[in-house]
């Protein structure tokens, strides 16, 4: 029983992690069809923002939950303005531009901070479940994932700004004819996606380690999750994270971490073969 619960907790943490690292990408891709290949570097910048703030003496929670999203959100706003704004609707060009940005960001951060791994420890201890010990930080991540998901849903569904964003994504020309500046909506959405990614990077930093190339570890998983999820951005990310996170954690538990990753990829490939439009192309179509 204790073992089952400990494994369950492990799985839930895996799902939460996947959801956290994918959500920013899902917002930017789902709302604007911009494939942001610099997503991994947004995570990395979030992690660096947090670690630098902590070293400067800032409270660790402030550094992770406030500084990281603000810094990366600001960087995202600047990136949108100089790089993305002229390229909406040109999928290949945005991919090339954000890929270049990804390489540039890795280069710049390496130049400033070096390429050694640094880190800060999970700011919570561990909890005992019967004879097993589990990190309380895992529990915190599960809570954070729930808050992030519900928060994004609430903003889109319950606020005037969310209504404007949803309508503009459905028909930008009509939105303009009704009095909305599509450019401002795009900028705000991209900034929000970047801020979520920055927060995500700070949240994973305690167990991932902080290196300039850390983004490359996560971007593939984030992309697979978003693609598997399909068109409905939140329902898709949630269902894909739940499925792939469980598969990879259980695969890791019963075999090895490498094999766990392989099993997850195989499942994702099979799923996309069966459901080319992703999970929400078939189920929960009307969800957000």
């Amino acid at each position: 029983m204790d073992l089952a619960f400990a494994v369950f907790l492990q799985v839930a943490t895996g799902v939460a992690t996947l959801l956290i690292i994918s959500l920013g990408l899902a917002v930017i891709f789902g709302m604007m069809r911009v494939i942001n290949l610099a997503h991994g570097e947004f995570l990395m910048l979030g992690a660096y923002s947090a670690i630098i703030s902590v070293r400067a003496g800032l409270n660790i929670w402030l550094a992770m939950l406030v500084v990281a999203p603000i810094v990366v959100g600001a960087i995202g706003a600047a990136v949108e303005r100089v790089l993305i704004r002229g390229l909406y609707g040109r999928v290949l060009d945005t991919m090339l531009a954000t890929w270049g940005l990804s390489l540039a960001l890795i280069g710049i951060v390496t130049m400033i901070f070096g390429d050694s791994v640094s880190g800060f420890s999970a700011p919570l201890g561990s909890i005992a479940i019967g004879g097993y010990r589990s990190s309380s930080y895992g529990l915190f991540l599960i809570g954070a994932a729930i808050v992030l998901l519900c928060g994004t849903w609430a903003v889109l569904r319950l606020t005037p700004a969310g209504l404007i964003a949803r309508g503009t994504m459905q028909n930008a020309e009509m939105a303009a004819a009704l009095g909305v500046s599509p450019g401002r909506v795009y900028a705000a959405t991209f900034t929000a996606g970047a801020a979520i990614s920055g927060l995500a990077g700070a949240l994973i930093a305690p167990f991932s380690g902080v290196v300039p190339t850390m983004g490359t570890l996560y971007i593939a998983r984030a992309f697979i999750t978003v693609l598997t999820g399909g068109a409905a951005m939140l329902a898709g990310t949630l269902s894909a994270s739940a499925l792939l996170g469980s598969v990879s954690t259980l695969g890791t538990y019963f075999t090895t971490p490498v094999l766990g990753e392989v099993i997850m990829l195989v499942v994702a490939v099979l799923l996309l073969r069966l459901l080319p439009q992703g999970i929400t192309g078939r189920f929960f179509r009307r969800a957000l």
Partner: protein
Amino acid sequence: MIRIRDLSSGYGRIEVLHGISLEAARGTCVGILGHNGMGKTTLLKTVMGLIPATGGSIELEGRAVERLPAHLRARAGLGYVPQGRQIFPGLTVRDNLRFAAIACRAPASVADQVLDEFPELGRLLDRPGGTLSGGEQQLLAVARALCGRPRLLLLDEPTEGIQPSIVAALVERVAALRRDRGLTVLLVEQNLDFIHAVADRALLIQRGRIGAEIAREALGDPALVAEFIGVA
């Protein structure tokens, strides 16, 4: 109310409008007739700012708007009901209306007032716009435009593919809006009966120019209109 002078525009290097001039006084309804491909929709899109004007001027209540982006023209008092209606399919009827009110910074109560004028929409409020019939969508498109509190309404082929009962409702509604709100209407239409029922006069647009003006009395006579369309 609106004064358009020598307006030209087009798509890329292909010019579609070659110097259109027209005026409409407050509370009047001007119909724009013409065959497909003559530039009717292009004219409304250029007035709305969805296609940039390459020359000429558009004055709305004495204010030059031809350089403003579409969203500022909407806030300056232009309401747009496009061809094909362009309802947000994933938003409910209520949210389609709220969207327009928020976009033009109108108070939320505007949507309720508009709903009083469009009682047909009352029972559809929680349905996604994409599930409505064509006629219901057309009423919603007009109601949505009104939520921005426009003073000039641009109507692009509102009767296209619509059942007769809704066409009748539209005739009555456009008349009421002109009477009660002093709304000015620019109406692009191929349906002569509809133009005759709501417009004070009609302009014939041919190959991107105004070919002729048809007085209201003449609109009722199909033979006369056919002659106009034939000659001009």
